[in-house]
């Protein structure tokens, strides 16, 4: 699991790759979101396209990230979901909590809408 961070149109884009799972991946996600907030970013977009496995701790971290960013007056949105991640967000009924986009342009544009 590794997370790349880049910027596009005032939005911080986080790109986790691999497994967001207990003990390693979940902490990495928390750290990346924390750093983005520290750096002053309030518009955070997570590209889930590279995520192969997300366990319940990983989903928990995604929820935590969402609430942390919201509490700081920011927004955390998701895009490019693999089918298996969509399945899990559906089963856990979190799909309606998150704003989810298919492609990056659309997702980035949504922050300035």
């Amino acid at each position, binding site marked *: 699991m590794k997370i790349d961070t880049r910027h596009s149109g005032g939005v911080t884009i986080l790109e986790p790759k691999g497994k967001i799972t207990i003990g390693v991946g979940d902490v990495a996600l928390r750290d990346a979101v924390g750093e983005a907030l520290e750096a002053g970013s309030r518009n955070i977009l997570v590209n889930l396209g590279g995520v192969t496995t997300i*366990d*319940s*701790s990983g989903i*928990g971290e995604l929820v935590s990230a969402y609430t942390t960013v919201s509490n700081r007056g920011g927004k955390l949105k998701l895009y490019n979901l693999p089918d298996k991640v969509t399945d899990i967000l559906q089963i856990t009924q979190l799909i309606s*909590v998150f704003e989810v986009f298919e492609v990056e342009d659309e997702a980035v544009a949504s922050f300035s809408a």
Partner: protein
Amino acid sequence: MPVQSSQVRISIGSRFEHIDLIQIVVDDALARLGLDEDSRHWVGIAVREGVANAIKHGNRQDPDKEVEVELAIEDDHAVIRIEDSGEGFDPSQVEDPLAPENLLKPNGRGIFYMKSFMDDIQYSQRPGGGTVVTLRKRIGDKGSGRGPAPRRNQET
């Protein structure tokens, strides 16, 4: 499919980094039983949850305490038993992660994952103390599409 007793057992010290290894073993064993890749993905995640709970809540991450995972075929089911030596708990007291007040909680979805991805899950007490969770998945069941069937058992 012959009825076979315990085929494979793995014991790990209670460290999260061993979870990958368990998933790999389970995946390999299920592949040899002919379970398709998608189904194996979901079973693998369920097994991860069971092992993570055994490490975290059962053995409280004490690396000297072992989590034992047993793979067997019973009738036409793959059966995965995960055992820890913790204090146990009452599964009927576990909250529903879909309840509105729990939806945004950072945890409490592990058992729900297992129920969703397996055909059956049962909790029991280990004779010497500790928890056993038994996960069952029908073999020969090709699955009904890309996703897992969201299934919620009221038992356990």
